[in-house]
């Protein structure tokens, strides 16, 4: 059967057909849907782990136990997973193991534009890169076989345009594998210096063999067209090159190790060799280091995404139409009724410096809330606030860290432990909307449900914080601005480590809302106080404020700002 499929679904399908038994992941755009699709296959055990390090360790364990395993993450997730990855490259596998990583050129939904291909090189593991859904399924299946053949974890790299595009895929049946036995073998599985030194030699020998074998690899192919120009490319960019040029193409399917000799041969048959790759000159610099004459980055640059149009323009000067009209930007915003909004309103009003974190609430940095002052990576908010404290910054008592529930569990917990252990004074607000919102509403340990929606033991944040030794833990309703303000004032005035849990489910978790609020125009004095919370449902048109009833979810936060009681509950 032929099915139109999102590439992320095709990766899930490929793993399923390859007989994968265990999949553990942490969500992250653009990789999230892979594991959501895996969760639909009853034959496969799947889970959301609290972070990518845990997910990778579970996959390593399942592999050593003898079954095929997979873990999926976005590019920055590999930073978190790097520790197990680098040493799993030494132990090698038992059942095949695949780590899927999705990069985000142009940063559609990310905090940086890092290029995960370097991870494959530094960890000495092979990396495959498909160009569309069909290839993604094929490569995923083959990645497991490659993993077992070479006794190594294999990375599969996607980029946003590949992960989130759909094309037709031919479905095949799942093949079950009997689990291999786990045989005690400390020289392979116990990485301590004496054993690891020997394994390092194995890693090098394996990499040398792979580097030779890839020159005849089925993952790479040449498409002969005009020989005036030869282009080496991979992934989505291959599709653009194919469309924009008539050059001959060396399509790289295994981006690490690179098929240097095969490309050298290809180069010898074309007049000019161009490398077209988004982000870093990963392929280009390796070829140059091996003495293959080529170029690329000086034309295309390291930032953002390419397209057929951009390649045509850079190579042939052919321009495509540009935007004509000057129109107001439409940046993403927190939803109407988002429980984070009121907390940021209060923090902004109190003039508090906010050490932010990653989630829907990062959007609190934008006007009119303008409340977030720094944001680096998941979990960092609490550590940075502790850093302000220990740096004896004059702002230290006028500061809070703000972090979501999923992010707190991902990597905030250890930061609180650090602050308590080292006698810090800081206040953290956990924005507990009982879901992983930004990535599309995944359950997490604090929601009490598994990836398959089954009930499970629920992490008790209050009990956890108390056990860590946090001096003060208070819980407030995130919609109650007075309560939030009181808690912030009290807790920031306190010595020691304090945590405020601002609790309210994400506004998108219910579908049934009370009727929308309305602005009573007889009472409204057009003071515009309600506009300061930046709710997208409150519109300011032609000298009047009105509430868009299609968007309002009746959270009641705006009513707390109106001195004239002009915002009224709607009637059914």
């Amino acid at each position: 059967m032929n099915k139109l499929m999102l590439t992320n679904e095709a990766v899930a399908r490929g793993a399923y057909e390859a007989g994968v038994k265990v999949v553990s992941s942490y969500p992250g755009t653009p990789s999230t849907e892979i594991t959501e699709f895996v969760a639909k296959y009853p034959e496969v055990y799947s889970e959301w782990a609290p972070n990518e390090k845990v997910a990778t360790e579970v996959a390593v364990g399942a592999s050593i136990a003898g079954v095929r395993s997979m873990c999926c993450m976005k590019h920055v997730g590999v930073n978190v997973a790097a520790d197990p990855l680098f040493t799993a490259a030494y132990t090698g596998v038992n059942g095949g193991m695949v780590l899927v990583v999705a990069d985000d050129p142009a940063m559609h939904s990310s905090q940086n534009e890092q290029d995960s291909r370097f991870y494959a090189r530094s960890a000495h593991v092979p990396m495959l890169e498909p160009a569309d859904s069909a290839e993604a399924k094929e490569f995923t299946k083959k990645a497991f076989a490659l993993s077992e053949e070479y006794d190594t974890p294999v990375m599969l790299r996607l980029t946003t345009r590949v992960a989130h595009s759909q094309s037709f895929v031919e479905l095949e049946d799942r093949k079950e594998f009997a689990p291999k036995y786990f045989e005690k073998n400390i020289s392979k599985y116990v990485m301590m210096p004496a054993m690891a030194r020997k394994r390092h030699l194995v890693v090098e020998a394996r990499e040398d063999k792979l580097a030779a074998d890839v020159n005849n690899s089925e993952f790479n192919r040449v498409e002969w067209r005009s020989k005036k120009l030869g282009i080496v490319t991979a992934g989505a960019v291959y599709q653009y090159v194919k469309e924009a040029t008539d050059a001959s193409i060396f399509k790289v399917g295994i981006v690490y190790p690179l098929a240097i000799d095969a490309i050298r041969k290809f180069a010898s048959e074309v007049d000019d060799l161009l490398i077209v790759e988004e982000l870093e000159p990963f392929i280009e610099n390796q070829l140059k280091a091996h003495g293959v004459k080529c170029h690329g980055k000086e034309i295309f640059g390291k930032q953002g995404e390419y397209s057929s149009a951009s390649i045509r323009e850079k190579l042939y000067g052919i321009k495509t139409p540009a935007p004509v009209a000057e129109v107001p930007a439409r940046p993403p915003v927190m939803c109407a009724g988002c429980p984070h909004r009121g907390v940021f309103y209060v923090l902004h009003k109190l003039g508090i410096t906010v050490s932010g974190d990653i989630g829907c609430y990062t959007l609190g940095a934008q006007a009119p809330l303008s409340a977030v002052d720094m944001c680096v990576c998941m979990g960092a908010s609490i550590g940075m606030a502790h850093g302000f404290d220990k740096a004896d910054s004059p702002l230290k008592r006028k500061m809070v860290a703000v972090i979501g529930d999923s992010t707190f569990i991902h990597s905030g917990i250890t930061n609180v432990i650090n602050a308590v252990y080292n006698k810090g004074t800081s206040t953290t607000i956990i924005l507990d909307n009982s879901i992983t919102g930004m990535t599309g509403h995944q359950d997490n340990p604090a929601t009490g449900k598994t990836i398959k929606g089954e009930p499970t033991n629920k992490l008790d944040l209050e009990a956890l914080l108390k056990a860590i030794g946090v001096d003060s833990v208070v819980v407030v309703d995130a919609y109650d601005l007075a309560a939030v303000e009181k808690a912030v004032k009290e807790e920031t005035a306190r010595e020691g480590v304090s945590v405020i849990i601002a609790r309210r489910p994400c506004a998108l978790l219910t579908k049934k809302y009370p009727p929308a609020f309305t602005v009573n125009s007889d009472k409204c004095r057009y003071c515009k106080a309600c506009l300061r919370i930046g709710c997208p449902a409150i519109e300011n048109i032609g000298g009047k404020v009105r509430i868009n009833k299609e968007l309002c979810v009746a959270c009641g936060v705006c009513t707390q700002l109106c001195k004239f009681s002009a915002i009224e509950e709607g009637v059914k």
Partner: protein
Amino acid sequence: MTNILIVGVGGQGTLLASRVLGAIAAIEGKDCKLSEVHGMSQRGGSVVTHVRIGDNIAAPLVTPGEADFILAFEKLEALRWGYYLRKDGKLLVNDQEIMPMPVITGAMAYPDGIYAKLAEEGRDTVVVDGLKLAAEAGNTKAVNVVMIGALCAIEGVKYEVALEAVRRSVPAKLLAVNEKALVAGYKSVGK
């Protein structure tokens, strides 16, 4: 090859719309590639989904100036993305305004006379009162399917094919509403 751009505001259901078009391609036995938006922009940002239907499609992205149709779920987004339309292409606009944050904060004004501007830019524009038709069909969220109906009518897609595609793309319990929305969309462009 037919190139279609679906533009709107995160949360308006551009994803579903593109999937219905994909299902139509599947039913008609054509090749198809879609490029969707997930993640950050879905939180009320400007979103654009690319749909390409034809034979042996390479890139999943439509090139500016080459879209045969633009399906705009919101007026400002029609203006923003209009430059993707080819000279004799058609722009279908849902006659709805959603204020972006810079307008809400008062930093910028929502542009006046969008249809006149589109005409000045030479865009062949068809206006559909999608929100009203969706509300009449029973759910304002069905604007996306109304717009698909209008597009299918203009493109000459058989109604039965479009309906089957909708059936494949929406949950069973929402089929009745979406079927009404599809019919309303077909009728809205007077064919």
